[in-house]
């Protein structure tokens, strides 16, 4: 019986149980659920445990866009349930695999429906297919589903709400977890459909829906009448349940932390995992086209502020574009694409060829430019189209009520991308229009004066501007860790850590691991499928055996003697001290 219950849709809450900024605690077939309505009205149904240490998400907080776990403040985005921020490591982007288990949600008849592994759709009940239904008060019962249904079959109520004038009832239908009764009295009829939610082996919730809601004062009378009658029924059922056999609680399986699926690589080494459709394309500024991409089928994965996607263009080229919207907002990705004069066909293709309604292949978001949320103040410096990742950051900082400024350097007013977003950000935006290189340097010097501890700067723009910023910041005594650059061209490295070679003993392959790339990434780029999970050197999944060479351990998984022995390495974070490592793969 339980297997088939797993494949059905069940009501787990009423729509009114989900005011904004509240996290509802529910349970279905033994599994606790955290249910919350985001500000965009999407109803999230998640397993009620944070992936980190199993803390109930229902004791956390919702800000309408993200859910924050009460224990360590981890943040999970609306819709995707992906982790967007881990406060203990504010400078790191959480691994994409950190994603809560979600369940589907459908709103119907004033109820929220979900299921373990539901097939098809929630039930359609003809009697309820009208706008006049009335949802009765939900009644939690400490009794199993069958017992509750059995008693409900004999439920009697009054159409007028008078408990001394119960109507004659007849059953319209009954199935495994619901039934419908119609009462007749003095020519009047009233139909009630009861859905019984199987919470646990010995717990259920009765969710009744009247097919026709009475008007005015009668509405409340009716609700009170049914609440009283159902409470009496509950008391009887619970007494009977106590005499029944004692039932073991249902145990929901908790899945292991997912291993990132090995990627099947294309020659370029990057897989375009997602298909999206161009929802909207418009000229957002002089020479800049805005694109809104929505998913076809599966919901879009979480992105973090600063993240970018690979877009696989119809002409065969692959280009990276930053996502401009903040996490948790809507179910689409918004990009800004500047038409480059010396374009080899990438931006030209998006400007001229791609149309609304077209389908594009894109990668999942990657984040090499993560945003810290623990700065006392954040300064964002955008040069031209470099504003795109910074817009996502600015909105995120605004949503989290953190102090920031966005300095946008552009040629003219008409060159400002996404002016509607800039308007919303209000006074936090400072425009610098039409400045010459010298004037730009002066402006940068002014805004970079007076570094304070725990302030952070994020810069994105053309190469010369980044170099100027680097120089000015250094002269103004900004610490290196406080300034973060994103270069829009692949070849420039940001990182000054090592580059070395890895030789793969079993694959007869020698690969270069450049600075800024991990061994794991290089292997995957070259078709070697390695599993990973946390991508922080903590869980041990991406471990590989070292045959030769001296690893430079940066993980926390191996103990000291294991590190000293040098025969194992965590490929997601560790590097090499020697010029070459020979790995046993």
């Amino acid at each position: 019986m339980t297997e088939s219950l797993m494949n059905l849709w069940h009501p787990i809450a009423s729509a009114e149980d989900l005011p904004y900024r509240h996290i509802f605690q529910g349970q279905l077939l033994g599994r606790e659920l955290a249910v919350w309505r985001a500000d965009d009205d999407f109803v999230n149904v998640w397993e009620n445990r944070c992936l980190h240490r199993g803390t109930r998400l229902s004791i956390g907080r919702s800000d309408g866009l993200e859910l924050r776990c009460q224990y360590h403040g981890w943040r999970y985005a609306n819709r995707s349930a992906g982790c967007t921020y881990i406060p203990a490591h504010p400078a790191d982007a959480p691994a994409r695999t950190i994603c809560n288990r979600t369940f589907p949600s459908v709103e119907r008849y004033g109820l929220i429906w979900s299921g373990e592994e539901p097939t098809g759709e929630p039930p359609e009940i003809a009697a309820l297919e009208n706008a006049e239904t009335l949802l009765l008060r939900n009644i939690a019962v400490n009794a199993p589903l069958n017992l509750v249904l059995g008693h409900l079959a004999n439920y009697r109520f009054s159409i007028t709400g008078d408990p001394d004038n119960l109507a004659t009832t007849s059953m319209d239908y009954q199935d495994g977890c619901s039934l419908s009764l119609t009462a007749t009295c003095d020519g009047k009829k009233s139909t009630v459909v009861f859905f019984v939610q199987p919470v646990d082996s010995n717990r259920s919730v009765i969710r009744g829906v009247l097919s026709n809601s009475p008007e005015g004062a009668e509405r409340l009378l009716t609700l009170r009448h049914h609440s009283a009658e159902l409470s009496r029924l509950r008391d009887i059922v619970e007494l009977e349940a106590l005499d029944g056999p004692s039932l073991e609680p249902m145990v929901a399986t908790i899945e292991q932390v997912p291993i990132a699926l090995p990627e099947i690589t294309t020659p370029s080494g990057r897989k375009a995992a997602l298909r999206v459709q161009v929802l909207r394309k418009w000229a957002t500024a002089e020479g800049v086209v805005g694109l809104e991409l929505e998913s076809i089928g599966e919901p879009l994965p979480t992105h973090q502020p600063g993240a970018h996607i690979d877009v696989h263009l119809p002409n065969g080229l692959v280009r990276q574009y930053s996502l401009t919207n903040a996490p948790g907002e809507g179910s689409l990705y918004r990009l800004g694409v500047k038409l480059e004069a010396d374009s080899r066909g990438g931006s030209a293709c998006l400007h001229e060829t791609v149309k609304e309604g077209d389908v594009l292949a894109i990668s999942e978001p990657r984040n090499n430019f993560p945003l810290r949320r623990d700065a006392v103040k954040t300064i964002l410096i955008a040069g031209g189209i470099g504003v795109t990742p910074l817009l996502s950051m600015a909105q995120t900082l605004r949503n989290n009520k953190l102090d920031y400024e966005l300095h946008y350097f552009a040629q003219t007013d008409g060159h400002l991308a996404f002016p509607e977003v800039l308007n919303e950000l209000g006074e936090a935006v400072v425009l610098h229009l039409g400045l010459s290189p010298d004037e730009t340097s002066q402006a940068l010097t002014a805004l970079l004066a007076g570094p304070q501890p725990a302030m952070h700067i994020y810069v994105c723009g053309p190469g010369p501007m980044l170099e100027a910023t680097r120089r000015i910041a250094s002269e103004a005594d900004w610490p290196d860790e406080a300034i973060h650059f994103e270069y829009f061209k692949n070849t420039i490295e940001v990182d000054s850590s090592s580059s070395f070679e890895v030789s793969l003993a079993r694959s007869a392959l020698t690969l270069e691991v450049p600075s800024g790339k991990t061994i794991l990434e290089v292997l995957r780029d070259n078709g070697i499928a390695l599993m990973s999970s946390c991508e922080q050197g903590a869980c041990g999944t991406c471990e590989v055996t070292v045959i030769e060479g001296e690893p430079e351990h940066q993980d926390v998984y191996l103990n000291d003697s294991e590190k000293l022995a040098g025969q194992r390495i965590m490929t997601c974070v560790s590097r090499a001290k020697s010029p070459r490592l020979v790995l046993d793969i």
Partner: protein
Amino acid sequence: MKLLANPEVCTNAAILDLWHPLVPTSEIQVGVVRELSLLGQAVSYLSTSPDIYRAWRTDPATPVGTASEPSSVTEGLPILDRYGYLWTSLGVPNGDLFDIPEYDEPDRRNIHAATIGVHCSAPRAIENFLDMGHFPYVHTGVLGIEPHTEVVDYDVQIDADSNELWATQCLFFQPMAAATSTAGEMVGYTYRVPHPYCSLLYKTSPLDESRMDVIGLFVRSVGPDRIEAHMILSLIDDSNTDSFIRRFQQSIFAQDKPILENQNPKLLPLDPRAETPIRSDRSAIAYRRWLSDLGVTYGVIPEGRSND
């Protein structure tokens, strides 16, 4: 104290063969038999005269509150009076209890802060004690505050001789690190786990930089998922009353209790893929591996088993 119905009885030698804390000796009345639950078993204890204690497995025929050990008890349990608590073992302890040299220093304030009951497993409580990342969220304004949420890297080692777990070079920004603090600062901590269900934390004394204040959590596992947590302090402090210090510790622990009680599964999973550790969880990662290596199966879900 009433016993809980049907606690699961421990048969795990790695845990049975250890000393476990029963109650603070200050709370033991002379001449009254009391009982409690340890590792799922009923244990009775008695003080026959000041500082003389006896403990034995409860004789079901003996009512609580009587004045002496029943004659039916042929073998008492081994006992220790250490650090202000009565300790016993339900197995064969291999040697003495772990040592806390600071406790015996003549100018120390040794304080039993409280014993609080929590519906969680002992290892969950120990892991929470070792964790710093929760300070700004659970102990807001006291042990941590946003935006100072970063946990910088620290060291974790197993001491080869004593087989104790140590986490050193731990550093965290604290607005009110001790009951006596007046301003926020980076505070250095060292954590020590000398016993699967006991942990100690060392921080530099505000009064003497060369010495450490010690705070301890000694857990009595009532059942696999229920504990009585004893909190002990050994401080250099010449100005605050015992009462003041106790209140501070009690309010800190009272903030942790609902978190511990809202973690699932209650038993600590030792499989590295059961939960998602991050770099700042070094001590937790090491603690779970250490418990596996010791062969602990009580209060945990051993590696390779699914939770159920």
